[in-house]
Each structure stands twice: as structure tokens, then as C-alpha cells.
């Protein structure tokens, strides 16, 4: 009979310590809840503010934190000292994906191309519209914006918090030129890209000397300035009211309408709004893939290598004779160009734009997608965009939660709350982003994936 294995002394669970830690966390939570949760403010019928005590909510919050902290403390003790590692995937999974990245890219591409067909087969003609529009198109817009910003942040290492300005430039260029001059989507798409790139250069020029956090704040200021001008210059942009009735894109001249010369009639199909959505889906898919293709190719060109060198060490770059001004400006304007493409697509898809769509929060979301995915990693950005945008869109589908929490419960209210919280949690869990290994473009003899800690910011 084998002897009973004794637990080592260090593994003994110390209940008291865990309880103490949990009690402390609960006490802090209680303190945090006292003013802001314990009393809700509400306008009564006379429009006077009154307080509603909500001690049950405080009790819930304290209890949840107490139990959560207690379990965490126990878990940490079991794992011994040091930071507890959370692993969702078995070791080497990401390496496996990276070794077969070509295969997975093809599989992913195949899925994206067939996504509308899959959606129609699974959800039917009626249900597919929501899936293709809310999930397919919406996520792909953010993937494209993420990949565009990735050129600026991930490759060139310039932290841009005002990316949404270029998105706005693209959207307003399309909206105004299409409405006032009647130009078609296919002429205006490259044009808005060029205009956005021009603005990128214009805004990029004065901030070239800045670095890091300062650059982030100035780009934020520029983003806000453009939005405030769009709000206040009413003659130009119609202010808060925005621009409505923007011409929708046509299938190379054939409009998606129920009329006799519409898409459905020309091709002898029954009219359905789904055709336009599917068309838009393929347009944004094409644009996103173009962004990815250009990024991958540019990384192998001298200018792409210069970006990455610049990101790693600006002084070394300058001493080696790289023109840092031009290098930064190309990164800024190329990133802006893709933002402009996405913007004009956005205007064409919505048919209505207003400054409300271009608030700072959008810039923060795009930057969050790039950083959370792992800067410089195209896969990481795509995964982060799907998780963050798709995840928050999924909250709209959680109607069944109403049966648990009562009819007043509205899961969409918590969308951005969860988004912000997820940003903090992912940063603490994986500060280098979800994909935290990098493949160098320049290497000696053998190409190896390295940890992202070895490089400054991106895909070193």
C-alpha cells in the first residue's frame, strides 16, 4: 500500500489570511459604494432631484467582491508566491498558429468570403441581415481601422489618439462631395483617402518633434479640434444635425432599389435589402484586405523597415541617415489614408453622419483594439476587433437576461462599462496584447518568433 502523500507545509491553505484580505477588499468596496451606489439621484415629477437609497445594490457589490477576493487569495496561495499565471490556451498554441499562419490565413479568408452565405444558410433571409450588418460589416470596419492605425502605432511607434479625425475627414469628404457634386462612390473612395492622407500630413507636420505621451495628447487635441469645427461650422457641415440623405453606393452604376433599373430587377431576382448589405460587406472586406496587404508589403520595403527602426531607436535611426521627417510623415499619412477609406465607406453605409460618430471614444476604441491585440500583429488586431466589437454587439442579443434580472434590465447599457473594464483587465493580464510574440522582418539566417518584450512596441 502506497503511503498517503503528505501535502507540503507551504501548500497548506491559510484561511485566516485569505479571509482578512477578502474582508479588507470588501471594506474598500463598501467605502467606494457609499456615496455613488448607495443613493441614486432621480428627478421627480416636479423636476426636483431626490435620492433613492439602494442598500441592496451595495450589499450585492460587497458580497461579490468579498467572495471573489477570497477565492483569488486561496488560488494564489495554492500556486505559491509570485504572480499567478492565467492561461486560456495550452502552451505553444500561438506558436503553432504562427508556424501555420499561411494555412490559417487562408482558412480565415475562406470563412470571411463565405460568411454571407453561411449567415443566410444558418439564419435565413430575414435573420441574415442583422448578422451580416451588425457583426460582419461592423467588425470589419473596426478591423480595417485597427489595421490602418497599426501602421502608425504598431509599425512606426507614433502614438495617435486622434485617429478618428481622419475617419471623419473621409466620411465628410464622401458625404459633401457626393451630395453637392453627385460624384459616385467609386470616384470618391480614393479621393477621400487622398484627402485624409493630406490631412494626416498637415496634422503630422507640426507634431513631428514630439514623442510618446505628448504626441498622444496633441493628436487627441487635433481630433477634438476637427470635431468641434464640424459642430460649429454649420454652413459647411450642418453642425450637430449632421448630413442626411447621403447617396448610397451602387453596384457599378446599378442602384440597390426596388425600381425597374434596380439591382434585383436587372439580375432578375426578387427585391431584398439584403443584396446591398452583402455588397457592402464585400466592399469593406476588400478594403480591409487591401490594408492588410499593403501593410505586409510595406514592411518589406525600405520605408517599412525605416518605420520599425524608428520605433526602436530614433537617435540611432537619425545617425544612420534615415530621414525621420519623411518616415514619420509617410506613416502618418498612410495610416490616415486607410482611416479616410474607412470613413467614406462608413458614410456610404450609414447614409447619415454627424459629429457624434467621431468622438474621442472612437479613437480610444480603435487604439485599444490595436494595443489589446498586440501592436503590429495583424492577427492580434483582427482577433481583438472581433472580440471587443462582436462581444459588445452580442450584448444586444442577451434578451433572456431580462428573465433573470427583471424587465428593466437592459444589457446594452453595460456595453461600454464592460469595454472599459475589459481594457484594464487585458492590459493587466497581458500587457503586450493578446498576440505577444513577434516575427522579425529582418533576421540573420533563421527566422524565429520572439517575445514582444524584446521590441519597443510592435512587430519587431
Amino acid at each position, binding site marked *: 500500500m502506497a503511503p498517503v502523500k503528505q501535502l507540503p507545509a507551504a501548500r497548506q491553505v491559510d484561511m485566516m489570511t485569505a479571509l482578512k484580505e477578502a474582508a479588507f477588499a470588501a471594506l*474598500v468596496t463598501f*467605502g*467606494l459604494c*457609499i*456615496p*455613488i*451606489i448607495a*443613493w*441614486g*439621484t*432621480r*428627478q421627480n415629477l416636479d423636476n426636483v*432631484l*431626490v*435620492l433613492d437609497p439602494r442598500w441592496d445594490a451595495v450589499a450585492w457589490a460587497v458580497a461579490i467582491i468579498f467572495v471573489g477576493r477570497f477565492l483569488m487569495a486561496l488560488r494564489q496561495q495554492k500556486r505559491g508566491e509570485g504572480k499567478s499565471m492565467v492561461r486560456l490556451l495550452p502552451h505553444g498554441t500561438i506558436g503553432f498558429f504562427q508556424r501555420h499562419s499561411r494555412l490559417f490565413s487562408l482558412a480565415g479568408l475562406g470563412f470571411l468570403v463565405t460568411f454571407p452565405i453561411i449567415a443566410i444558410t444558418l439564419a435565413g433571409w430575414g435573420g441574415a441581415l442583422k448578422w451580416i450588418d451588425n457583426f460582419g460589416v461592423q467588425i470589419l470596419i473596426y478591423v480595417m481601422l485597427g489595421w490602418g492605425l497599426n501602421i502608425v502605432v504598431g509599425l512606426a511607434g507614433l*502614438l495617435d489618439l486622434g485617429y478618428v479625425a481622419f475617419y471623419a475627414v473621409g466620411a465628410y469628404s464622401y458625404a459633401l462631395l457626393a451630395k453637392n457634386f453627385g460624384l459616385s462612390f467609386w470616384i470618391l473612395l480614393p479621393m477621400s483617402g487622398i484627402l485624409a492622407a493630406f490631412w494626416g500630413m498637415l496634422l503630422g507636420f*507640426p*507634431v513631428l*518633434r*514630439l514623442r*510618446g*505621451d*505628448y504626441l*498622444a*495628447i*496633441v493628436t*487627441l*487635441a*487635433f481630433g*477634438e*479640434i476637427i470635431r*468641434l*469645427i464640424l459642430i*460649429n461650422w454649420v454652413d459647411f457641415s450642418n453642425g450637430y444635425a449632421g448630413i442626411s440623405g447621403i447617396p448610397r453606393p451602387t453596384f457599378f452604376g446599378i442602384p440597390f432599389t426596388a425600381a425597374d433599373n434596380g439591382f434585383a430587377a436587372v439580375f432578375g431576382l426578387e427585391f431584398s435589402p439584403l443584396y446591398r448589405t452583402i455588397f457592402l460587406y464585400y466592399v469593406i472586406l476588400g478594403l480591409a484586405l487591401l490594408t492588410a496587404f499593403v501593410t505586409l508589403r510595406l514592411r518589406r520595403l525600405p520605408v517599412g523597415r525605416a518605420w520599425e527602426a524608428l520605433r526602436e531607436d530614433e*537617435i540611432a535611426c537619425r545617425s544612420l541617415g534615415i530621414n525621420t521627417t519623411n518616415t514619420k510623415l509617410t506613416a502618418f499619412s498612410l495610416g490616415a489614408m486607410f482611416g479616410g477609406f474607412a470613413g467614406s465607406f462608413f458614410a456610404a453605409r450609414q447614409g447619415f453622419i454627424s459629429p457624434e460618430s467621431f468622438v*474621442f*471614444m472612437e479613437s*480610444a476604441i480603435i*487604439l*485599444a483594439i490595436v*494595443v*489589446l491585440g498586440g*501592436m503590429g500583429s495583424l492577427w492580434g488586431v483582427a482577433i481583438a476587433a472581433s472580440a471587443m466589437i462582436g462581444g459588445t454587439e452580442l450584448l444586444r442579443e442577451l434578451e433572456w437576461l431580462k428573465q433573470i434580472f427583471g424587465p428593466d434590465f437592459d444589457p446594452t*447599457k*453595460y456595453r*461600454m*462599462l464592460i*469595454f*472599459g*473594464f*475589459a*481594457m*484594464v483587465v487585458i*492590459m*493587466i493580464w497581458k*500587457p*503586450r496584447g493578446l498576440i505577444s510574440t513577434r516575427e522579425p522582418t529582418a533576421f540573420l539566417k533563421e527566422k524565429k518568433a520572439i517575445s514582444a*518584450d524584446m521590441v*519597443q*512596441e510592435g512587430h519587431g
Partner: protein
Amino acid sequence: MEVFLQQLINGLTLGSIYGLIAIGYTMVFGIIGMVNFAHGDVFMLSAFIALIFFMLIASWFGAGLIVVALIFVLVLAMFFTSLWNWTIERVAYRPLRGSFRLAPLISAIGMSIFLTNFVQVVQGPRNKSIPPMLNKSITLIESTTYSVQISYKQIVIILTTAILLAAFWFIVQKTSLGRAQRACEQDRKMAGLLGIDVDRTISITFVMGAALAAVAGVMYLVLYGVVNFADGFTPGVKAFTAAVLGGIGSLPGAVIGGLLIGLIEVFWSAYFTIDYKDVAAFCILAVVLVFMPSGILGRPEVEKV
């Protein structure tokens, strides 16, 4: 001339609020080199905390002695806002210390989004207003066309700011705590080797920043009487502008910068157009950072190779 004097008073009032918030930015940047993006939202949160305490005190004791109530609210708001910022530092920033440069910034942006939406969820999206208080004012210059007035509110705001800044200045310059802070600012590793508890010092820095933001929050509520969950962003960016203008890392610089930004904003609204007052503030931010990155009182950044 009368208009100028009146706007000067208004500008100083607004500027002291910006200055109080700016100190939180400048201290945190000085000690851990990070733009605490959530600071504007901490300010907004403190205004909500103050609003709730104002109403509690009014319903328990009546609204008789407004000054006593104000002092109580100030102390309570400072305490609870500090607790919030202490927790935020502990949960969202401390685990990322020593991580790569962008991680704390992204975490702070996440925290900012979280705080904004947290307040929206728990307190509702509508403007929250309290009945106006301290409405009387003193007429300084009597004139047939335009008389210059300073309201009790403005006196309270300017006085409170001045007193608290003096107290704060004393803490940073004369106590061992302030010495530890300044040491950490110069060289965190060396300070740690010499026996300073660096983590604790950083925590206290966040607590102090939050306490001053809470003062600003209470003053904001007294001045405007209304607060909204989205009110943190613009004052936050303007206060950061103030910190940069004064020279980031410098405490008197933050106050000077705050007063300047307040004055510029008020004069711009009075003499040019009110629509573009935020554009003016943001343009100043860009111009200062591009042409004068070390600000008025800051030390120039040394480029080490």
C-alpha cells in the same frame, strides 16, 4: 475696462478649478511618468459624490448653514474620491509598473471609459442639478452701463483654492512625506534603495491628486450647480493642457497654467466667440507642446543616448 475686470474675476474662478485638477496630472506624471487619463473622470466622480452629500445633508439637517454644509461636503468628497483613486491605482496601474510604456496609458484610458459609464449606469444619463446656493454678490465697481460684481461663490472658490494650495505646498515642501515624493520623482530606484517605500509614496500621490480633484469637483458643483456623467473629459483635457503649459512636473506651474487657461477661455468667450472656446484651449495645447515642450516652469527634458 469694466468688462475686462469682470472677465478677469470669472477667469480666475474657472482657472482655479483647472489648476486644482492640473496638480493631479502633474504630480502623477512627475512621479511615474504617465498621463493619468482617468483623472478628469475622477474629478467628475467627485462632483457626483459631492452632489449626493449635499442632498443628504440638506435632507437631514436642512439647508440652514450653507458654509458648514460646504465644509462637511468638501471633507467627505475629498475622503471618498481619494479612496476611489487609491483603489484605481492599486487595481489598474500598480500591476503595470515596470511594464512597457503604453500599458499604463491604455489601462488609464480603459479606466476612464469605465468610470464614465459606471456613473452613467448608477446615476443615470441626465443632467443632475442642485438648487443654486451662495447667490449674493458684492458689487465692486458701480457703473451706469456695466457694474463689476464678485459673487460669494467666486469668493469661496478662490479662497478655498488658495488655502488648500498653501496647505498642499507645505506638505510637499516641508514634510518627510513631501521629501519622499520629491525623491521618488528624481530617481525611483535610488529612493527605494535609501529606504523609501516607493509604492506607498505613489499611492499617496494618487490620494493627494484625487483630494485636490475632489475640491475642484465640489467647486465646479457650487459654481455651475449642475453635473453630468460626461463632464469629466473636457475639463480633464483642459487641466492637462494647464499642466503642460505650466511645465509638467512642476506644482506652481500647474496652478499658473490653470489660471492662464481659465483666463484665456473666459476672455476668448467674451471678446471673440463662445463656440470656439474649446478649440482655443486645444490649439494652445498643441502650440505649447510643439514650440515650448518644457512649459513655463518645467525643466527641459534631457535626451539620453
